[in-house]
């Protein structure tokens, strides 16, 4: 097993609203290994994006990381690092690809110029011409046709899929050790999406980086991840290898999610979709006990009162009272 590169320990991130302090992520612990893709699954509001923003320390002003939380990157605790230290890591060792490529570029400057800016921020010694050559090479690596011409184009001149490739080129420009990908293909068409995933996997193999891949789509994560961690209402509910999650999902939430999505080759005549009742609880009114119990078909008394811990073995963890005995 590869050595770990990022360890999140006991992460709690809270948001201060006018009246409340709302935890978006609660006591989350997970490990990302070198050259691994960790898939993080969950619906909106379950804390996927907040986890990324906490690691990169890009939280909005009303968001705070609780003091007992630790985020260790190669032994350094990022929560304790001064802003200057963070600045030298962001965009270099740790970079991010967002869902919306249009919003990630400045519309007023050519894409190439923006990549050059990132390279020269982290490596001021590199002359502009050489940085531009590197940007062109990156464009070639992400398979944008005619890289030497497209490098001068403005963001609006790219299609959605091509601009997402350019954004990946930007994220890869300083050879990151960890790439955070926040729903990078959700806004794209099916055929374009596969091209982008293939590209990420290929670059991962070529540069030995790790990818922290966030998505709501379990089947997509199953196809590309080594391990998957499922979040629900700010807590990790299940973590195991991607294959195991699809063949032997343990947590009722994971099972329900897999049953609620039409699989390829199923038609309405043949099989009715499983319907998960209710909705994701809003962070200010999370239910006591297991947060999933109001929607869970297997809930019993204990689930309503006591919060389950993580049960099972390191290779397959699950937060559910059903598995307490096996522990």
């Amino acid at each position, binding site marked *: 097993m590869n050595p770990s590169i990022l360890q999140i320990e006991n992460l709690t991130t809270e948001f201060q609203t006018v009246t409340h302090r709302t935890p978006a992520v609660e006591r989350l612990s997970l490990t990302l290994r070198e050259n691994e893709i960790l898939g993080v699954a969950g*619906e*909106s509001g379950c804390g996927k994006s907040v986890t990324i923003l906490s690691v990169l320390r890009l939280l909005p002003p009303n968001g705070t990381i609780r003091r007992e939380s630790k985020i260790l990157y190669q032994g350094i605790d990022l929560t304790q690092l001064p802003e200057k230290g963070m600045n030298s890591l962001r965009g270099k060792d740790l970079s991010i690809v967002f869902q919306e490529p249009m919003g990630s570029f400045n519309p007023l400057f050519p894409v190439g110029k923006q990549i050059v800016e990132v390279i020269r921020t982290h490596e001021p010694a590199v002359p502009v011409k050489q940085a531009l050559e590197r940007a062109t090479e990156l464009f070639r690596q992400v398979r944008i*046709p005619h890289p030497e011409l497209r490098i001068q184009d403005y963001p609006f001149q790219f299609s*959605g*899929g091509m601009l997402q490739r350019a954004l990946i080129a930007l994220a890869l420009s300083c050879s990151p050790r960890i790439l955070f990908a926040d729903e990078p293909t959700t806004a794209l*068409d*099916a*055929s*374009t*999406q*596969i*091209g982008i*995933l*293939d590209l990420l*996997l290929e670059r991962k193999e070529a540069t030995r980086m790790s990818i922290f891949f966030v998505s*709501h*789509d*379990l*089947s*997509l994560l*199953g*196809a590309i991840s080594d391990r998957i961690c499922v979040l629900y209402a700010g807590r990790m509910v299940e973590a195991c290898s991607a294959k195991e999650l699809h063949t032997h999902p343990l947590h009722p939430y994971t099972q*329900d*999610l897999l049953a*609620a*999505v*039409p*699989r*390829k*080759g*199923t*038609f*309405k005549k043949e099989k*009715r*979709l*499983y*319907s*998960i*009742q209710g*909705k*994701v609880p809003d962070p200010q009114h999370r239910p006591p006990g297991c947060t999933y119990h109001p*929607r869970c078909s297997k809930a019993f008394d204990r689930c309503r009162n006591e919060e389950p811990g993580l049960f099972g073995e390191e290779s397959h963890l699950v937060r559910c009272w059903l598995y307490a005995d096996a522990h």
Partner: protein
Amino acid sequence: MQMHIEVSGLVKQYPLKAGLFARSRERVHAVNGVSFSIPKGQTLGIVGESGCGKTTTARLLLRVVEPDSGVFRFEQVENVFALPEEELKKVRSRMQYIFQDPYNSLNPKMLVRDIVTEPIRYRGNVTRRELERKAAELLEHVGLSPADSKKYPHEFSGGQRQRISIARALSSRPSFIICDEPVSSLDVSIQSQILNLLIDLQQELGITYLFIAHNLAVVFYMSDTLAVMYTGKIVEMGLAEELYRNPLHPYTRLLIKTLDPEARKDPLVKNDSGEVPSLIHYPAGCTFFPRCPRRQPKCLEAFPALETKGLNHQVACYFPGQEKGNE
């Protein structure tokens, strides 16, 4: 079979804006001769990538956008496109539209009761008491509580809002509903609730659906018949199961391949350039030519006509069928 809806030769071109006095002759070819029919109580699904004319087709049917040409036979009306405004109003109450975004499609200043009964009030001559009774009935029908009628849209979650949109669509007793990406803005656990509701309503009330979504597995699941659109034309159409098991057009084959988690390893998907020709300078030949794995000089002559291949299966390709050595 008695067709509920028959559309033929639907065309819409948008003129490009030129200067103030200059008159532009250039046009965007959004929909280029689309024809289809749907039997009563069945679902026609439309798939295709963004910009292929799915939504424009839907809007043309309701005459939100006026078509350049085409015939739309609906129930007893020979051609909806030829109706004068007054007559159109009557027909429109039999056709409804469910939008993608349940946040922007409900007026935030209106009570839910007024939102769902607006189509009834529009036709006039109903008492207030009757409206209230009707609102309660509609809300119950879509799985909400009658007490919800005195709330505002912001008090509901995304899934509940989509239920309100459905209640509003049902209020004028339509026989035909256009669902334009009805679940793509919803969380995974909510999607199946809405899909199941749509299926139940169809079975109970015999409503005909035109179902548009970019998620292929969802469209295949929901549709009886499926139309694959590319650059404003239908390139293949047939029973959903037949199309899934025996796709004949290379574009359909590509789309179906993308449903497979291992798709990125498939040469057909890997070598796909994703290059779509300009809809302004619409080419004379087949628009899929640049991406097609089995293109021939003949394909550049004219766009192939939609020809029947087997029962309820039509394809627009000179060389339809399976590639050799595949599958």
